[in-house]
């Protein structure tokens, strides 16, 4: 039972997230075709591939620098809503880890909370509007439920993100493109919540020791 992780685990996280997004890009695009504009999978795959390329290119280590570089890469390569949102998330998350050495469950939760704060600052949405926030908030709450065990915490967060993703299905969107559909947005899972669930699951797997 690992109590803390280092920035190497975050590197693994980004790699696992890239692989999982690439594998499920068509699925994400199909979700976006139903209630958006059919580009979310393409966008995320392009962005995560660029992130891994930037990570491979090396540079100063440390969780702070790593996540900032990843965030800036997403901002510069994704576009659309997801680029600024996920980019800001990672930038803020990195900022919160600035002076943290070994990352425990609580400091990870603090960092995710900072990231979620960035999402809200950028996107001006709240929970329940059928966006990626509906996966992030449950994930954050689950993280907080295991302050001593980062493995259990991230696994619980991944499960909560997945439930949050599923819970977006009946929602009527009031933010993002799906809001244009009004009531017709109900009955479909939000693509951003789905990509969040994939990303949080990658985090849990990296923390649990899976290698990329």
């Amino acid at each position, binding site marked *: 039972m690992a109590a803390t992780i280092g920035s190497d685990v975050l590197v693994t996280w980004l790699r696992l997230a890239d692989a999982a997004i690439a594998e499920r890009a068509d699925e994400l695009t199909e979700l976006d075709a139903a209630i958006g504009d*059919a580009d979310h999978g393409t966008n995320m795959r392009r962005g995560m591939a660029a992130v891994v390329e930037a990570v491979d290119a090396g540079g100063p280590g440390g969780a702070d620098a790593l996540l900032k570089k990843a965030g800036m890469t997403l901002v510069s390569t994704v576009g*659309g*809503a997801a680029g600024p949102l996920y980019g800001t998330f990672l930038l803020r998350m990195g900022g919160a880890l600035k002076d943290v050495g070994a990352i425990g469950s609580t400091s990870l939760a603090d960092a995710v909370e900072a990231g979620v704060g960035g999402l809200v600052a950028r996107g001006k949405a709240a929970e329940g509007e059928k966006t990626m926030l509906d996966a992030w908030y449950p994930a954050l709450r689950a993280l907080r439920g295991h302050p001593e065990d980062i493995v259990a915490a991230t696994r619980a967060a991944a499960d909560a993100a997945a439930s949050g993703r599923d819970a977006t299905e009946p929602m009527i969107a*009031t933010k993002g*493109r799906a809001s244009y559909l009004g009531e017709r947005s109900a009955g479909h899972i939000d693509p951003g919540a789905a990509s969040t669930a994939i990303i949080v699951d990658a985090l849990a797997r990296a923390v649990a020791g899976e290698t990329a």
Partner: protein
Amino acid sequence: MKKLINSVDTVVADALAGMAAAHPDALRVDLDKHIVYRARAKEQGRVAIVSGGGSGHEPLHGGFVGPGMLDAACAGEIFTSPVPDQIIAATTAVDRGAGVLHLVKNYTGDVMNFEMAAEIAAGSGIEVATVVTNDDVAVEDSLYTAGRRGVGVTVLAEKIAGAAAEQGRPLAEVAEIATRVNANGRSMGMALTSCTVPANGKPSFDLPDDEMEIGIGIHGEPGRHREKIAPASEIAGRLVEPILAELPAGDGHGVIAFLNGMGASPLIELYVMYHEVAELLAARGVGIERRLVGNYITSLDMAGCSLTLLRADDEMLRLWDAPVNTPGLRWGA
């Protein structure tokens, strides 16, 4: 999926290379950053205008770069807003010391990316004003939602603000005129078929052979509702009525009527539609001061059309009539 493309990953790059090759005297295209510039930048001391957005709406925006309209257009991937780096590069390149207007269609992604770019450009000392278009009456406007989409009025705002910038007006005035155009313009669209996003490879929505979508946007989003296909005269009513219900009365000024094709509807059909729209407006006592009929803000290979009405005051009409010389819109020059 049947398209004249090389691969789904290179559509935007290949099309920009084609634009560059097709308009070597008029445009300069940054094929690395995906930015379309005028071949000759405007004089020092004039306000510049930058627009951009996802690709797939051609000729918008790159086709509207040129004297009398835009100074630069940033092309995102298909239906994906450009990234801040592109917008910053364009803004920096076209600034002639009088500031830069960002004309942005109201989509969460577009707004956020332009916002990030404007923050950074402002930080480097360039005066940036932003006007967001949101004219689509198919979408409810509310403080608590993403709001209305920016569609057809964007073309009119680019033309009219472009003319104002060309005249040497200050940034605040150019922005005010663009804001006024947006405030007095409303649009409504419909589709006979979905478009197919190349990377998705199949139509974004399925539409039976005898049905149409009313209230669609320009990204293959399904509309607000679906109904049986109807004659052009009835379709015209589906577009005109919701627009008139929300169009400012504007001192009884007449309108600029803009009947736009979504990309795969041929001109003969757009003229049929325009005839019905003109008849309806006449019956409703709405004077038509100017008209534009054609494919100007499209949605890939979607069949269908949209109507934009702009309640145009005399200044807007004068600016509308001013010379414009771009690949997509050209008169008086």
